[in-house]
């Protein structure tokens, strides 16, 4: 796959990731900009569609006098004091892009990281950004910022060359200074920028420093503002505060899809200092403390009604029976090559198996939170979201005000994992604040977070396959009901394939999640591969490599196997080895697991994990390793025990005591092999490393017990005796 094709793949929005169309909303002028930032040099980066860089005509062009281009991805300002401020609509949710993007800027602009300020996720100050999802920050924004920074560096070199009347070619940028390599004359950026008001649009062709020559990027860099976090100083969305602020509480319906039959607000209204709102199905209160708000909400007498709703006992039957008619399918996809039906009908042995995944919750440790403040018809909201601009649109629609009246700010939030795409808390806080005529903060309780957020879609996957006597897969049919199309295509080389995503009616509110359906699809595919290998009496690794041409994927399987010691003899009873791997969001992963199954109790313990990962040139090795480890650990939860239990529109396990997430005792030693491909552009790593762990564990359990598990979670309460 060429880089250009890859870029196109990565920007393709996924079914569950977007609810808002892509649009640009930029209307600042250069004059406004300098008023806000002070004089200096401003570099704006147009965000051309992937692959369009070469076709859009060469040369650098200055932006017209008073307008800036409409399609901007990021901008960078160098102040007269030499300070560097970078603006991007991306959001920091713990994936540490504040750090990796700072490295990108530092690398090209040749300034220390400490001098760079990243302004992120503020709809008033940052250029429009669709959202932080799909592992797009590194392949797209990192590249964008390197280009913007290179342009800034060259602009300053140009100023120095003109001032010193020398050839720009003999000038070099080093550590925040321009140095004349012939005369050793040098000047700080600040002294060269002083008095300038230059707006430079991103040149189309500006060479970037190749990864092999990186000195800042490519090296481990710990969280740039880590000190703020270990001292408790950083203010997350739920820590925001305004004078006179009230605390809000929503009175939730008794079940999903319920309508309000009657409501009695009299008792609640007797409490002093409490504002109460009832607007259609929305009932909420705001009070000077959370305790008082909870008391008031408890006094609201509301009666709800709803129709009977399914439970997770009949979940997979429900999904299979409730496929959407073709006209409502939206982006459903069918991929077919060869003549799968014919081949499968003609072979003597087919393997046909079904795999399932339950709904799971993101459970970000910081629940949804928002602080909203009105000034006339101007609304400001601080909230934890991966889509600040999307939340702005939601607020505009909810309150029927123009987007220009709304500013959404996104302080670095307490994680998201795809769970913070929507603006629920923002809308609730804003509705209460409008009624109370004071700022209102809402922080969802853990129970609300487990109930009223959305979930990773459950799914049923049916796989039918056939192999020849030589161990080559000759036909592959794969149907995914509901969980999604991410990672649905196979990377194994199979001449006859039919792969289809079937959207269905859903039983719970569902949406994005780290890796989306790629986890379910890899679980089904990589488990099925193991079943085929077993049927053929072939080694799992050998079978995979026999059917795999992709060099990058082969490389991670081979590197992981080497580190893991694949093929070695078992050393204990109940021990099992397994693997799972694949390709997702441009990253290549192979995960190997060792488990120990207690014959008596059926308890499964993961005793070792090895993951080999490759995502092009590595920007921040330490940060990458942290992501790979974290993805594996999060993946252990979905693999072994996480499942949302629900019945008739209610969640039955909405607490950490009932919904088990991985804890210290669940974590085995994790070894990470990172393949650094300095010849390839860097891509993201937040999602891909999560897809291998579930099949690796399931296959290891089979290796230990000869029990084949085809449902996630694999062992919610042990294998049983």
């Amino acid at each position: 796959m060429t880089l250009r094709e890859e870029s196109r793949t990565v920007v393709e929005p996924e079914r569950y990731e977007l609810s808002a169309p892509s649009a640009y909303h930029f209307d600042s002028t250069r004059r406004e900009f300098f008023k806000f930032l002070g004089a200096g040099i401003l570099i704006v980066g147009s965000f051309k569609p992937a692959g369009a860089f070469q076709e859009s005509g060469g040369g650098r062009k200055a932006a017209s006098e008073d307008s800036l281009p409409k399609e901007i991805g990021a901008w960078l300002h160098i102040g007269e004091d030499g300070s560097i401020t970078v603006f991007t609509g991306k959001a920091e949710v713990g994936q540490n892009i504040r750090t990796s993007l700072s490295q990108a800027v530092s690398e090209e602009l040749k300034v220390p990281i400490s001098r760079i300020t990243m302004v992120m996720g503020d709809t008033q100050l940052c250029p429009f950004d669709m959202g932080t999802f799909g592992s797009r920050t590194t392949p797209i924004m990192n590249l964008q910022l390197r280009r913007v920074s290179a342009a800034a560096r060259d602009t300053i070199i140009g100023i120095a060359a003109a001032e010193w009347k020398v050839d720009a070619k003999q000038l070099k940028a080093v550590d925040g200074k321009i140095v004349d390599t012939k005369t050793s004359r040098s000047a700080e950026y600040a002294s060269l920028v002083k008095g300038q008001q230059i707006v430079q649009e991103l040149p189309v062709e500006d060479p970037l420093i190749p990864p092999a020559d990186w000195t800042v990027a490519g090296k481990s860099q710990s969280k740039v503002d880590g000190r703020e976090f270990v001292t408790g100083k950083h203010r997350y969305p739920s820590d925001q505060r305004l004078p006179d602020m009230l605390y809000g509480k929503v009175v939730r319906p008794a079940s999903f899809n319920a309508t309000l039959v009657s409501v009695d607000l009299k008792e609640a209204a007797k409490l002093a200092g409490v504002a109460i709102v009832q607007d259609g199905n929305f009932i909420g209160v705001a009070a000077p403390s959370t305790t008082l708000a909870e008391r008031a909400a408890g006094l609201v007498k509301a009666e709800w009604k709803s129709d009977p709703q399914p439970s997770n006992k009949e979940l997979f039957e429900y999904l299979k029976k409730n496929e959407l008619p073709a006209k409502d399918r939206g982006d459903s996809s069918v991929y077919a090559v060869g003549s799968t039906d014919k081949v499968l009908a003609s072979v003597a042995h087919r393997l046909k198996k079904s795999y399932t995944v339950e709904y799971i919750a993101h459970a970000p440790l910081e629940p949804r939170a928002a602080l909203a403040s009105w000034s006339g018809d101007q609304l400001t909201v601080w909230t934890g979201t991966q889509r600040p601009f999307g939340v702005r649109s939601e607020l505009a629609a909810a309150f029927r005000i123009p987007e220009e009246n709304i500013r959404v700010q996104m302080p670095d939030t307490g994680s998201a994992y795809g769970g913070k795409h929507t603006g629920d808390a923002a809308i609730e806080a804003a509705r209460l604040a409008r009624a109370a005529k004071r700022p209102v903060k809402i922080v969802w309780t853990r129970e609300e977070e487990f109930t009223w957020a959305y979930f990773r879609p459950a799914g049923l996957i049916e796989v039918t396959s056939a192999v020849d006597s030589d161990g080559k897969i000759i036909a592959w049919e794969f149907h995914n009901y509901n969980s999604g199309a991410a990672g649905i295509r196979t990377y194994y080389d199979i001449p006859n394939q039919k792969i289809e995503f079937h959207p269905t009616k859903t039983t719970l509110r569902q949406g994005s999640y780290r890796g989306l359906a790629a986890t379910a699809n890899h679980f089904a595919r990589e488990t099925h591969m193991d079943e085929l290998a077993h049927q053929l009496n072939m080694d799992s690794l050998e079978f995979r490599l026999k059917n795999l041409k992709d060099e990058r994927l082969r490389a991670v399987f081979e590197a992981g196997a080497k580190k893991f010691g694949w093929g070695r003899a078992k050393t204990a009873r109940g021990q099992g080895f397994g693997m799972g791997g694949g390709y997702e969001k441009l990253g290549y992963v192979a995960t190997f697991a060792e488990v120990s199954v207690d014959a008596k109790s059926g308890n499964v313990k993961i005793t070792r994990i090895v993951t080999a990962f490759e995502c092009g040139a590595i920007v921040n090795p330490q940060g990458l390793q942290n992501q790979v480890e974290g993805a594996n650990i999060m993946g252990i939860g979905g693999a072994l025990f996480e499942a949302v239990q629900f019945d008739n529109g209610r969640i039955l396990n909405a607490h950490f005591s009932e919904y088990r997430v991985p804890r210290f005792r669940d974590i085995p030693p994790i070894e990470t092999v990172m393949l650094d491909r300095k010849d390839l552009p860097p891509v993201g790593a937040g999602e891909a490393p999560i897809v291998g762990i579930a099949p690796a564990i399931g296959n290891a359990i089979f290796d230990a017990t000869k029990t084949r598990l085809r449902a996630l979670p694999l062992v919610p309460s042990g294998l049983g005796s």
Partner: protein
Amino acid sequence: MKLDINGKGFNVTAEPEASLLSVLREELDLTGTKYGCGEGQCGACTVLVDGIARRSCLTSVGSLQDKKIMTIEGLAKGEALHPLQQAFLEEDAMQCAYCTSGMIMSAVSLLSSKPAPSETEIVQFMQGNICRCGTHPRIVAAIRKAAKWLQAAHS
């Protein structure tokens, strides 16, 4: 009611049954202590009461008269970070870092009662603290590192 927090006296107007977490965050604006579940299940709200880790969401302020409370804001001595804070930075023992305050406060309590804990003892003690980002191995490494520093300082 008067509370001793991070060596300073605070007059608090909340009712005695109010949780320490709500008083810290809402009345005193000490937001380094986090809400994660309100049920003592996640450890994000951990503070020290007379040097011992306590879940502030389940601790009523009425029970804290004459006790010394320490939150994450009181751990560093001026600009000098506590060894655990420094070790968390060096080991990159955080991603979103929302659990970090609670992790560090729990670990302070652990090391004060057990200056040289084994890995198993660390895991056992930290079991009640949730990190959703999955930085557990780094947190264990940070605690071991800080324990070594503290022991070297005392020997």
